[in-house]
C-alpha cells in the first residue's frame, strides 16, 4: 500500500507538470562504464557539452506508472476523466509489451459488502475491456475485486469515498 501511495504521489506530480510517464534509462550502469574507460583530454567545447554526471538515486528497474481511475457512486461506467487516464495507461502498456497487470476494482464503504464485491468486479472489467479495445492483449490483464474491503482513505466522508471508488493497475 505504501508503494502504491508513493506511486500515486509521483503520478500526481507528473500530471501536475503535464508530462507523460516516460521510460527511464538505467543511467547508473552507463555512468559506471564511462568511468572505467580511459578518457582523452576534452576540449573546452566538449567539456561544456558533457555535463558532469550527478550522483543518481539507484534505480533497480525501469518504472512504469499506471494511474488509477475513479468512479461515481454505485456506477461502473467510465467517466471522461477515466477514459483519458485509461488511454494514457493503454499507451504505456503498448510501449511495454512485456508487462502484465492486475486491475483491482474497489468501492467505497457505502452499500452492502456483497453488492460492492460485484460492483468492484464490474469496475475492473470496465477498465480491462477498454484496454483490450485499445489493443492490449486480454491475456496480459487479470482482474480482482476487493469490494469495499481495501479503502485507501479510511475516513467516512465524501472526499474519502471518492478516492476509494477506483480501479488500480498493479504490475505483476
Amino acid at each position: 500500500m505504501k508503494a502504491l501511495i508513493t506511486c500515486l504521489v509521483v503520478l500526481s506530480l507528473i500530471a501536475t507538470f503535464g508530462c507523460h510517464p516516460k521510460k527511464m534509462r538505467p543511467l547508473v550502469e552507463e555512468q559506471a562504464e564511462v568511468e572505467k574507460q580511459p578518457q582523452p583530454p576534452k576540449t573546452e567545447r566538449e567539456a561544456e557539452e558533457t555535463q558532469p554526471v550527478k550522483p543518481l538515486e539507484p534505480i533497480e528497474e525501469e518504472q512504469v506508472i499506471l494511474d488509477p481511475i475513479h468512479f461515481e457512486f454505485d456506477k461502473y461506467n467510465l467517466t471522461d476523466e477515466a477514459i483519458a487516464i485509461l488511454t494514457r495507461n493503454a499507451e504505456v502498456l503498448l510501449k511495454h509489451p512485456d508487462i502484465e497487470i492486475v486491475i483491482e476494482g474497489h468501492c467505497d464503504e457505502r452499500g452492502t459488502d456483497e453488492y460492492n464485491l460485484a460492483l468492484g468486479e464490474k469496475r475492473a472489467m470496465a477498465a480491462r475491456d477498454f484496454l483490450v479495445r485499445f489493443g492490449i492483449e486480454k491475456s496480459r490483464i487479470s482482474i480482482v475485486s476487493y469490494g469495499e474491503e481495501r479503502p485507501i482513505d479510511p475516513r467516512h466522508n465524501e472526499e474519502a469515498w471518492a478516492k476509494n471508488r477506483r480501479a488500480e493497475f498493479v504490475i505483476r
Partner: protein
Amino acid sequence: MRVIPLLIGVLLASSVGAQPDVRLRVTKEEHQAIRIAIEDSTEVTSYLKSMHQAFSGFFRWALEVTSYLEIAESTEKGKPQASVHLRGSPREETIAYEITLVDYPSKATIFRRIYSCSDETIKSTAYVAADDIIFALTGRNGIASTRLAFVAGEKSKSHLYVVDLDGSNLRKLTSSPGIVMSPAWSPDGSRLAYVSYRQGKPDLYVVNLSNLATTRFLAFEGLNATPSWSPDGKHLAVTLSKDGNPEIYIISIDGKTIKRVTFYSGIDCSPTWAPNGLEIAFTSDRTGSPQIFVTDIEGLSVRRLTQEGSYNTSPAWSPQGDLIAFVSRIDGKFQICTVDPFGTEITVLTEVGNNEDPAWSPDGMHIAFSSTIGGNTGIYIMKRDGTSKRLIVDGFQLARSPSWTRQARVTSSRGG
C-alpha cells in the same frame, strides 16, 4: 452480554410515492409480549447455591431473548398472564427442578415437568426448560440454543467466527487474518460456506464444523462469492464471474453439476433460496439501480420485487417463505426492510445508523443484522417486525455478516 432496548419510531410517512400499488409500512409492534411471573421455591444448600443461581440466570435469559415473553417480577404487580413455578430439589451434586406452568387468571396448570441438571448441564437444561415454556405459551421454538456465524476484525484483516446466541463458545474458524465474507450455515448446521481471499482472490470455502476441515470448494476465475444453501442442503447458489460477468449459478454440493440461472450483462448477485427450493431472490442492477428480483431456479421467469428506492440489496428469504428481508438505502442510510414475495408491501424495520446483512432465525420470527446504532458495527437481533433490538455480538471493532443456524432446535421430549 449487553442488551440495548430501542424505541422504534415512525418512519417514512412522506417518502411513499410513484408506485401506488406498493405500500410502505411503518414499523409497529406485531405481538404483545406475554407477561409471566416466576415463583421460585427452590431451597438449596450453600454448595448448590451457585448452581441454582446460574440455572435461574440462564432460564430467565432464554425466556426473555425471544421477546415473546416478558418477566413480571411479582404476581401482584403487572398482572401476569402465566406463572412459572420453580421447585428445585438437591440430589447430591444435581438439582431436579419441578417446573409448573400455570395460566392466569384461570390458574389452570398448563404443564408440570421434571428437569434434572448437573454442573455441566445447567445451561442446556435451563434453555430446554425455557424453550418448553415458550413453546407451550406461543407455539414457537425458542432461540436460546441457536448459534451465529459472523465476520469480525479490521477490514481485510478479518476472521470468521461462530458463537452461541448467548455469547458463549466463541470460536475462531480462520487461522490467519484476511478478507472473509458471506458466511452461510448449511441447513443441518454441520458446515459453513464462506468467501476468503486466502489465495489472493475471492474463492468459496466450506468448513466442516465438527473437525474444522476446510476445503476450497470453488475457485473459478473471478468472483466465487455470496453462497446460499438450498433448503435440502444439496446445492449452493453462488455468484460467479467466470463467464465474463457476475451471474447466479446453482452448483451441487458434490461439485458435479453447475447450472447458470441468470443472463444479464450487468450485476446479478446475492442469491437466497425460497424455502420450497423452487425460486431464488437475488440482487440485480438490470433496471439501472440495484433491486431485488425473483427467478425460478431454471432462470426462465424473472420478476422484480422492489419498486421503491434506488438501492435495494442483500435479500434473505424467511424460513416460512412469507417475507424477504433486504437492505434499502433510505435518505442516504442503509436500513433493513421486508417485502412479501409479490412485492406489494414493504416494511422498514430499522431507522438509526446503517444496518446491513439481514439473516433469519431458524423459526423465522427474528432477524440478525449488522448495525452501527451502537457506534461500532455490531451484530444485533430483532423481532421480524423490527421491535426488540438486542446487541448480540459486541467487543469487536467491526462485526458483520451474521448467518444464523437454520435448523430448529430439537426441544425436549414433551412428557408429562
